[in-house]
């Protein structure tokens, strides 16, 4: 809501609100052109970059895109595939051919059962939202320890920070292994103190990630960690 440095105005808009004339600009996500006017379709912040006007939504459901790294949970097992809860509108499907193991037909259950948590990648999404996952790739695996936390989709960038700076701070302060899934699921593993601290940090992102006070609150929380005496 303050004025940005390059005259770019930080404006919060609601669905239906006119953002400006559509003449000569491209319409990005969260907006549409109607009668020579760009209209917001989401609750969020107006962004104008490279002559493209879009709205960064404040709240959003996870919409899978091919290539996304996600933390998923097995919801159903068949003879030759797994159905995964990916925290989106639709389940993802992991065929045994894309599992990291050699799986015999009918033996899928021996490798992963309902409730198991995995690190996977979205292989393909078709127009009807059929989502195929893969676990073939570096680092993709079943997660046998640690814990999974939820963060709003629109806060993921903030959790990572520019050039992963925030993620690095989280890792340093907690001394935990942390993986951020594009689907709003964050996996954290470390010792009890580190995980307890990381849990607080994720809760802070959940409650205050969208506020301008976030950085200050996070820094204060960072000082509470025992991991770095001088942090």
């Amino acid at each position, binding site marked *: 809501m303050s004025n940005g440095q390059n005259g770019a105005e930080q404006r919060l808009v609601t669905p239906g609100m006119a953002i400006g004339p559509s003449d000569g600009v491209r319409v990005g996500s969260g907006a549409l052109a109607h009668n020579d006017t760009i209209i917001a379709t989401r609750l969020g912040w107006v962004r104008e970059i490279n002559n493209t006007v879009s709205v960064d939504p404040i709240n959003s459901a996870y919409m899978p895109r091919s290539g996304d790294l996600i933390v998923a949970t097995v919801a159903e097992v068949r003879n030759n595939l797994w159905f995964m809860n990916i925290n989106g509108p639709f389940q993802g499907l992991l065929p045994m051919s894309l599992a990291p193991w050699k799986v015999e037909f009918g033996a899928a259950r021996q490798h992963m059962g309902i409730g198991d*948590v995995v690190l996977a990648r979205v292989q393909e999404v078709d127009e009807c939202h059929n989502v195929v996952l893969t676990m073939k790739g570096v680092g993709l695996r079943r997660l046998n320890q640690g814990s999974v936390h939820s963060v709003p989709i629109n806060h993921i960038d903030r959790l990572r920070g520019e050039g992963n700076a925030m993620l690095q701070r989280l890792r340093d302060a907690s001394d935990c292994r942390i993986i951020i899934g594009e689907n709003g699921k964050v996996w954290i593993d470390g010792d009890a103190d580190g995980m*307890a601290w990381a849990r*607080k940090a994720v809760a802070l992102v959940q409650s205050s990630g969208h506020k301008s006070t976030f950085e200050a609150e996070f820094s204060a929380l960072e000082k509470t960690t025992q991991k770095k005496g001088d942090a």
Partner: protein
Amino acid sequence: MVELVPTLLRQELARLAEDDLRLDGRGRWEGREVTLETDCLYNAEGSAKVTMGGTIVYAGVKFELRTPWPDRPSQGSLMCGAELRPVAHRKYEPGPPSPQSIELGRVVDRGIRESGCIDMESLCIVPGEKVWGVMIDIHVLSDGGNIFDACGLAAIAALRTAIVPAERFDVGEDYTLKVKGTPIMASFTRVGGRYVYDPSEEEELGGDERIHITLGDEGHLHSLQKGLRGVFTPAEFAEIFDVAHHRCVELRKLVANQEGN
């Protein structure tokens, strides 16, 4: 909808339990902050709103005139029902009342009824002809865990502020419903192998069986319920009974303070 229980959640809850910790940092017998508001709904003769963490529950009291049961000609009646409508959580589906919501309503009902806080004789207008039927309806708007305690608290708080609408029914002047006592419920869920008080949504998801204890003003038991799959020992019960006792005294004070305002 059957909720998916991630293996890692159960694993983590068990690990935390070893150090006697909880996911949200609470102590084992520590409750979340409770807020209570009464007289908050126009059209209800008594009403209350309770929030406990992410749980939000409303209760409203209505009266009706009815003919008494033939075997109890001078007694009115009390009914308490709960609705777990799909507004409250993704996991609740539309349709006829689920066994879950019937259990919830009946457990709250028993605690209030059996505490004797409502004198059924006092609800009689003309013996054998006309008595009051008191109906407490509980509406869960957001299930953030431990809806039982929130519902029990909302129900008794609403009841204690109820005005009998006698004028509207042409049977005299309105008066405050006489309620002797404040039965309070305390609930425990087995999480990571041991019982905790006031389980959160995640603790319920990754936990096991639960026990609900309703105590009256004198500390007497008025309703007990064990729900979900699992077993417990008499020693475990003795431990949570003691906690319930203390917690019920505190919550009873909260109700009294609200009335004092």
